[in-house]
């Protein structure tokens, strides 16, 4: 092992293996950065399963919790606490902010820790109390947005409450929800006085429970059998979709993105190690002649690789750690400040990747060295074709597949991604090979030698590999940087300037006229839609529940209440795609479903659905499916029923309209007059969502940058392979009187051509992907702009030229004399 390390050091000193080492470092950095990011983000959200509920179990309803339930829970020997959560608005001057109010009873949270600060910048401490009567605790963001300070008073409905503390960590809340609706926490004793709670308001009441498992089960089961679907029992293991699921999806996606870097870096490893092995052949023959056995040599090679893996794994992990800090900084807003300390597992992940990459990509080639015939010391031609053959490539593909499965933890996904990556590589390679073949033909056909093509056409395979490797990196950059931006632009362009940007929800029937005229005073002619909160309870006469579905979004649709409305005729932006819309004279209750909703839940025309609305049941047949143009920002519903079906049900109204920015004050006025009406600023929410997306995208962009770096390494590896020949050609040319300048110019042509091809191809493929995505996924028309291709070409040329010139700088420093004396192998 000592000798292996010594020899590794000698190789390194001699400039061998440097690219190989860097490739491993980059691959490890990609994998470890994701591992650390995922570990810490997951730690911040997922690990506290019980905390996320703030209880061992919770009972959720949309009606106020009967006092009797609390008493009964206590009789069962359970600790209890209650929360009521609903959206509302806080006003300061003309500024309004949608908030999420949470009214709590003493004892909250039963599990997990609530952390607060006296001032936004003050020390954080674990709080065991809840806000006193007349006081609120708020998220720091609310203070920023509304320019408030601790000690100020805010109005919540009819009550004026004083801001006493700032909430920094709330157990049962994911960090990023606060961006849309910051938390305002109050004492439940103050709730009634606000006047915000009324018929049809969107309050979610929770009874928090803590205690022994059997008692919890006994109590909740009893409640379940009494109340049926009207209560929802939540457990900490949480089949609830949500933050943890988003995190795990993001983790898998990033993990696979990191593997793209590993694949490209792996190509660099394959190339460099083969070159290295070829250069070692004579040396190994000498060692064998000197008495080294095959076993000894095998040990030496494996030893070298293991050492290299340990060292490169360490360096890569350090780089990965630094990268994960940058990524965390990108997404800091989404996380809140409850990040756990970094663990050591990613370090193991890094080493494992390094060792896997080296043993998978390098060893199959290197190990063949032990078969070098010792006779080679006397006859050069022996042991020549030792490194031909597909085995190393096949082993490498196997290792990549295994690494992918490990990252994705899902065989199907692995196979799909593997196939997609392979297909992309094949397409890129086929196009590159086609172009190179074309150039070859051109140089031949034109008779005279097109000097600047010769570099490419003399080494067609190296050229293809270089183009593909750089192309992959550039392509992911273009996809994320340009195409994604374009798609968003296009989408935004399609939304008319006067598309509704404000929603008003929770308007009581008796407030309808007042709100309508207030808006009309400002010249806004808004349409109001009735709605009721409903829960889906039955399909074709049988009870239906979340347990019948595996898909998390479907489960969510069944556990949460959703909005139900009625309509006489389809609204603009709604189009019946299956079945028929009801006619005025058919008295039977009927249902119209949005097609995506129906598909998700597997409902079809002809099915009979049962809904629970305010404690009553409505059963009706689905007679048609609609497509809905959601991005019109008009009020739309998943489920519509025919007129009359909802008669006598408690209804509220909602509306959407365009509010010019300068008339923001209207909302403040409106909320002042009608405290229970909740305004929702869609534009602000979209901005927030966009910011969140942008932050996520920046993380992925960083990943693609790593892929590009790996692509550069492949480029350099290919230059190194051709380096020997190049050196010799250069020396010859110079000995024949060509100036150094002229020789450099030839290389420059070659690099620029490779860069141009890689850039042009990746920009084209990214654009085509954009066109398909726009058409198939988003129903948009992607703007085809030639400048992207030009920009791609130029970017490719610039990157390849700079990396290539740097890698090849050594060839031109040496005098022709030295070069010729060294000869070429």
């Amino acid at each position, binding site marked *: 092992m000592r000798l292996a390390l010594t020899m590794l050091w*000698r190789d390194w000193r001699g400039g061998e293996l440097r690219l190989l080492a860097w490739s491993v470092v980059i691959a490890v950095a990609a994998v470890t950065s994701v591992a650390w990011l995922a570990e810490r983000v997951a730690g911040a959200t997922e690990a506290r399963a019980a905390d996320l509920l703030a209880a061992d179990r919770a009972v959720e309803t949309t009606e106020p919790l009967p006092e009797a339930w609390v008493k009964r829970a206590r009789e069962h020997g359970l600790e209890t606490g209650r929360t009521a959560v609903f959206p509302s608005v806080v006003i300061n001057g003309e500024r309004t902010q949608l908030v999420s109010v949470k009214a709590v009873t003493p004892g909250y949270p039963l599990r997990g820790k609530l952390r607060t600060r006296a001032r936004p910048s003050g020390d954080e401490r674990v709080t065991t109390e809840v806000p006193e009567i007349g006081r609120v605790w708020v998220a720091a963001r609310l203070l920023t947005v509304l320019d408030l300070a601790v000690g100020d008073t805010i109005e919540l409905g009819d009550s004026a409450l004083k801001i006493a503390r700032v909430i920094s960590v709330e157990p049962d809340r994911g960090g990023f929800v606060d961006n849309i609706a910051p938390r305002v926490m109050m004492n439940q004793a103050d709730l009634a006085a606000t006047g915000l709670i009324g018929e049809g308001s969107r309050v979610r009441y929770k009874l928090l429970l803590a205690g022994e498992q059997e008692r919890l089960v006994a109590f909740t089961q009893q409640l379940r059998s009494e109340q049926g679907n009207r209560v929802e029992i939540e457990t900490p293991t949480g089949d609830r979709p949500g933050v943890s699921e988003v995190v795990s999806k993001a983790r898998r996606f990033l993990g696979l993105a990191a593997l793209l870097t590993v694949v490209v870096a792996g190509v660099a490893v394959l190339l460099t190690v083969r070159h290295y092995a070829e250069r070692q052949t004579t040396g190994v023959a000498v*060692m064998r*002649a000197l*008495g080294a*056995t*095959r076993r*000894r040599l095998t040990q030496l090679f494996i030893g070298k690789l293991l050492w290299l893996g340990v060292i490169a794994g360490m360096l890569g992990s350090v780089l990965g750690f630094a990268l994960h800090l940058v990524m965390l900084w990108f997404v800091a807003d989404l996380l809140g400040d409850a990040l756990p300390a970094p663990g050591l597992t990613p370090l193991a992940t890094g080493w494992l990747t390094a060792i896997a990459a080296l043993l998978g990509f390098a060893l199959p080639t290197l190990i063949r060295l032990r078969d070098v015939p010792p*006779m080679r*010391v*006397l006859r050069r031609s022996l042991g020549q074709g030792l490194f031909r053959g597909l085995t190393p490539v096949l082993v490498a593909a196997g290792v990549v597949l295994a690494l992918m499965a490990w990252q994705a933890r899902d065989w199907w996904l692995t196979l799909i991604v593997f196939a997609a990556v392979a297909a992309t590589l094949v397409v890129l390679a086929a196009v590159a090979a086609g172009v190179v073949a074309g150039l070859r033909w051109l140089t031949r056909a034109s008779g005279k030698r097109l000097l600047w093509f010769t570099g490419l056409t003399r080494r067609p395979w190296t050229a293809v590999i270089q183009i593909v490797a750089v192309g992959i990196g550039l392509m992911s950059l273009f996809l994320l940087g340009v195409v994604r931006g374009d798609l968003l632009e296009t989408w935004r362009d399609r939304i008319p300037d006067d598309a509704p940007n404000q929603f008003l929800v929770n308007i009581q029937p008796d407030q309808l006229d007042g709100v309508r005229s207030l808006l009309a005073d400002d010249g806004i002619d808004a349409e109001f839609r009735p709605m009721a909160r409903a829960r889906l309870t039955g399909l074709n006469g049988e009870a239906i529940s979340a347990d019948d579905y595996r898909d998390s979004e479907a489960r969510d649709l069944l556990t949460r209440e959703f909005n139900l409305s009625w309509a006489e005729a389809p609204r603009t932006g709604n189009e019946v795609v299956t079945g028929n819309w009801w006619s005025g004279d058919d008295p039977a209750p009927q249902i119209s479903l949005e097609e995506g909703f129906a598909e998700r839940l597997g409902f079809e025309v002809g099915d009979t659905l049962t809904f629970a609305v305010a404690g009553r049941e409505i059963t009706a047949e689905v007679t048609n499916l609609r497509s809905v143009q959601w991005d019109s920002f008009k009020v739309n519903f998943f489920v519509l029923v025919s007129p009359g079906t909802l008669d006598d049900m408690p209804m509220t109204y909602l509306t959407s309209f365009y509010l010019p920015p300068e008339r923001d004050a209207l909302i403040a006025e409106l909320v002042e007059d009608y405290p229970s009406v909740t305004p929702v600023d869609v534009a602000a929410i979209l901005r927030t969502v966009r910011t969140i997306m942008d932050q996520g995208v920046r993380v992925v962009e960083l990943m693609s940058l790593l892929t590009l770096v790996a692509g550069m390494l492949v480029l350099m590896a290919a230059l190194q392979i051709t380096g020997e020949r190049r050196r010799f050609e250069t020396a010859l040319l110079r000995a024949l009187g060509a100036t150094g300048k002229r020789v450099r110019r030839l290389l420059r042509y070659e690099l620029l051509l490779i860069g141009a091809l890689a850039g042009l191809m990746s920009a084209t493929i990214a654009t085509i992907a954009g066109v398909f995505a726009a058409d198939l996924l988003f129903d948009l028309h992607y703007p085809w702009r030639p400048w992207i291709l030009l920009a791609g070409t130029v970017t490719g040329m610039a990157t390849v030229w700079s990396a290539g010139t740097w890698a090849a700088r050594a060839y031109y420093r040496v005098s022709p004399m030295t070069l010729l004396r060294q000869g070429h192998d």
Partner: protein
Amino acid sequence: MNDSSTPALQAEALSMHFSSPQGTIRLLASLELSIAAGESVAILGTSGSGKSTLLGLLAGLDLPTSGRVSLAGYDMTAMGEDERAQLRAGRVGFVFQAFHLLPGLTALENVMLPGELAGSDGVRAAATQALERVGLGARAGHYPAQLSGGEQQRAAMARAIVSQPSVLFADEPTGNLDHATGGYVIDQLFEMNRIDGMTLVLVTHDPTLAARCQRVLQLEDGVLVASAP
């Protein structure tokens, strides 16, 4: 087994055939050779007569088509590749026509290589000593590319003698060097043969060099014929 009665090297009925597109090439045909310990033998022959092939077989680098080769009494043709390697280790030294110094290693490290591979102790001291013996002590830290042809040959010599082998094989040891440059190393070789009793097997096409050996053999049509010294 290394007493004076056992030949240092013995070849019996040694044949080597290669199949080529033009048919079978019979390079060596039932060749017989016995070299006593401490002897110096030159093998002369035209280019392509099979000198290098014979040397390789004598050193156990390759196996003959038929016949036997024994090194210090051990029948190498009955051994596997790795056993032969172990037999060679420390017992056999080489000077090649192309020197074959490892380009990434300094002169000293090149000379240390055999000892390192064998896992012996005091490798560095022995290597330094060997370099001094060939007069290259001052250039121990230089890489092969920084050495002249003659110096490279001396480094190769030092590597060949560092483990104090009992047999030294040299294939065109002067390579493309002129007489004056190559001469010093050749003198060293014969001195070691005389003083240390190291068996010397020398392949060359240079009759003057061959003439310095105790025995000169000519490889002709696959067999060795004695030639007047």
